[in-house]
């Protein structure tokens, strides 16, 4: 009887109304954030680049030469061959990001570090490295202590003597050749191995030589098309060589991804053809505020002439200082806390304190920097060193926390395996834990640097100047930074053109630099996850 009545009724329904409402509420919350951010970015980018001031023909030309082919080829590839699509996009992305880094590096070699000085230090490092390698090769039996003392002595001596010797030479080669030797060669050595892809020692050597030759020829060919030898060499070494090596190496490993190269060619070719066509047809582009002049000139009282050059260079120098200070300190503290420190009340107290410090407002760190470095240690205000040290303190807790997270994600079985075979703690950390955690540590550090590059308040507190007309040349010279310059334009020079154009342009440059830094972190993280 009972089964009969149940069958007649069917299974009935379970209400999902609340669940559906909840789901769409979550969707709305997600969309709200994304939409708000997109609107803001479009608004700022529109003010900075002003795309609507261009001729309609300009838009039409680029639409025909760049957008249509990209969408057509890309859409086709995405459906038929996603791996090639990703590879092609990756090549273009790598070229764009590395070109930006090349710009930063060129700035350093043009205005801050003379190529001769750089060459001297690279040569010194190479000499020290050769000494250590030779020692390893001839006698593996030397005790660790002797080896490290000798290696340290060789490195210090070489760094102390070689740069001076190089500078005292009566004649140098040209700057382009010096940079080819000291920047192009190391990059070619790194890239050539990947590009040659198991082609044997001969193939690798050929690839490296080819890379060096490309950079060397570029240092002479650059002036012919109006680029100075130094920027041309830097651009080839930092942008063209790595991207080309990546493309060649990947195609050699996965021949089936060759269509991706065509995709990259369509995008780059479309851009070049579009530019030539626009020029030939006489269409004018947008009256963008983010242009060559903006990137290469200093502040000016009139908004139209104002530029960001010293601020960009200052931000680069600050980031170098911050990374050099916070990376070893932060990773060192993280390794100690994760691998050595016993789990007791004191270490837990330290851990909680570090978490709290990560949330302390940046203006407080600025006050700390002012108090410790300027008032107590008597350093001059607003220098690269003080600014970098203050920002390094600011991100130190974040670096420690993310490095601890990376170390904790190393499976305990790895440590057990290493201890089980008779490794000491130091050997385990050096050979097993750190190599495995390194990509995670690097990702966390880059994201933390991304926070530091956008900080204004600490720099104001330590007395960094609002306006600077040249790049800092030493650690003890005054420094400005991109967010600080933008703040100065928005507060001290608050006139309509500054508000409407210079500030958005500065923000766009800052965001682009930030995103390209983060893109490296994302690429690293993806690679790390794939490797597991």
């Amino acid at each position, binding site marked *: 009887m009972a089964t009969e009545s149940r069958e007649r009724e069917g299974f009935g329904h379970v209400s999902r109304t609340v669940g559906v409402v909840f789901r769409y509420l979550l969707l709305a919350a997600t969309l709200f954030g994304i939409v708000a951010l997109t609107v803001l970015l479009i608004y700022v980018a529109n003010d900075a680049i002003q795309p609507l001031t261009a001729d309609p023909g300009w838009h039409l030309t680029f639409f025909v030469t760049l957008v249509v082919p990209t969408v057509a080829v890309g859409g086709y590839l995405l459906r038929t061959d996603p791996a090639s699509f990703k590879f092609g996009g990756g090549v273009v992305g790598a070229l764009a990001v590395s070109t930006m880094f090349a710009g930063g590096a060129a700035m350093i070699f043009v205005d801050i570090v003379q190529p001769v000085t750089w060459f001297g230090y690279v040569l010194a490092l190479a000499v020290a490295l050769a000494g250590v390698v030779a020692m390893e090769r001839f006698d*593996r*039996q030397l*005790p*660790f*202590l002797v080896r490290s003392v000798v290696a340290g002595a060789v490195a210090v001596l070489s760094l102390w003597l070689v740069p001076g010797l190089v500078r005292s030479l009566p004649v140098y080669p040209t700057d382009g050749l010096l940079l080819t030797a000291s920047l192009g060669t190391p990059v070619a050595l790194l890239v050539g191995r990947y590009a040659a892809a198991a082609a044997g020692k001969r193939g690798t050597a050929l690839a490296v030589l080819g890379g060096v030759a490309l950079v060397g020829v570029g240092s002479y060919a650059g002036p012919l098309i109006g680029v100075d030898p130094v920027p041309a060499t830097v651009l080839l070494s930092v942008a063209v060589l790595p991207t080309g090596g990546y493309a060649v190496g990947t195609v050699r490993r996965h021949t089936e991804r060759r269509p991706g190269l065509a995709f990259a060619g369509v995008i780059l070719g479309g851009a070049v053809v579009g530019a030539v066509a626009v020029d030939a047809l006489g269409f004018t582009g947008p009256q963008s505020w983010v242009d060559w002049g903006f990137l290469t000139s200093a502040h000016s009282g009139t908004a139209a002439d104002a530029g960001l050059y010293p601020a960009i260079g200052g931000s680069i120098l600050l980031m170098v200082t911050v990374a050099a200070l916070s990376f070893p300190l932060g990773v060192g503290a993280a390794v100690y806390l994760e691998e050595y420190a*016993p*789990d007791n009340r004191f270490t837990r107290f330290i851990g909680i304190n570090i978490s709290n410090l990560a949330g302390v407002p940046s203006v407080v760190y600025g006050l700390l920097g002012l108090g410790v470095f300027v008032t107590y240690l008597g350093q001059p205000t607003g220098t690269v060193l003080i600014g970098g040290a203050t920002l390094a303190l600011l991100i130190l807790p974040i670096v420690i926390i993310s490095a601890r997270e990376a170390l904790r994600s190393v*499976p305990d*079985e*790895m440590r*057990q*395996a*290493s*201890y*089980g*075979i*008779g*490794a*000491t703690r*130091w*050997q385990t950390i050096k*050979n*097993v834990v750190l*190599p*495995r955690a390194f990509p995670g540590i690097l990702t966390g550090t880059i994201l933390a640097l991304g926070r530091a590059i956008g900080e204004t308040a600490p720099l104001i507190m330590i007395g960094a100047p609002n306006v600077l007309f040249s790049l800092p040349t030493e650690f003890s010279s005054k420094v400005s930074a991109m967010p600080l310059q933008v703040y100065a334009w928005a507060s001290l020079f608050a006139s309509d053109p500054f508000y409407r154009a210079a500030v958005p342009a500065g923000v766009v440059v800052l965001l682009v630099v930030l995103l390209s830094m983060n893109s490296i972190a994302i690429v690293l993280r993806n690679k790390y996850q794939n*490797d*597991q």
Partner: protein
Amino acid sequence: MTDNTNPEFAVDESTDDPTTDDMVTGTDVSESVTSSGATMQRDTVVSAENVSVWYNDDRALRDITLDIPEKQVTAMIGPSGCGKSTFLRCINRMNDMIDAARVEGDLYLRTKNVYDDDVDPVALRRRVGMVFQTPNPFPKSIYDNVAYGLKIQNKNGDYDRIVEESLKRAALWDEVSDQLDQSGLELSGGQQQRLCIARAIAPDPEVILMDEPASALDPVATSQIEDLITELAEEYTVVIVTHNMQQAARISNKTAVFLTGGELVEFDDTEKIFENPESQRVEDYITGKFG
């Protein structure tokens, strides 16, 4: 047992120092003592006397006394939580890693009490290899995995040859000989475990401890590992923990049965344990009435 100044385990923290040749001297000393007919049995490698282990206040092992013979497979069986793995980890002092663990009693490797104050656990572990429950190769190449022990112990010799021989002994060489520079993580589970065995035997230890080495593997891989263990016993003393009784019956020469509470209930030749155990509790456990 008498020679407490024996430097065989003494290694300082800076073990990148290749001048310490303790492996060679260590083996020499202990062999001479054994052959001169000390108090111990000629063929006993590991000997436990009243070993007890506490985790905080919980007693995990109660007065374990047993002698593990040389170049044979000794199996430890028993239900979960009976302390068999804990005993295994006493032999190479891996329990030192756990802050809460406390070991009492004497445990001799050859003639030396490994819990003496002058024993360096790191040096001890260089003479006692270990294979774990889940295959745990390093995220390095196959070659570097096998050579890891040689490198950290600063062993001299032809690494290429030792790596090849270890992989051959672990019955893995034929499958990986042309891909030694590939990552060890790209192998299958059974291959990874054999790689871990190759890694453990490369530095030529005296004893190999195996903590349920086949429990995470499929039946085919398990039988490969079992064949391998039988072969390894020709040259090494193997101590294996397993909760698979058939496995213990198949591969071991001697079997120790641990039961709940950390007691060693019976220790004898494997055939005797499985055919005619003395203790009723062991018989119940083996016939499946309990545990």
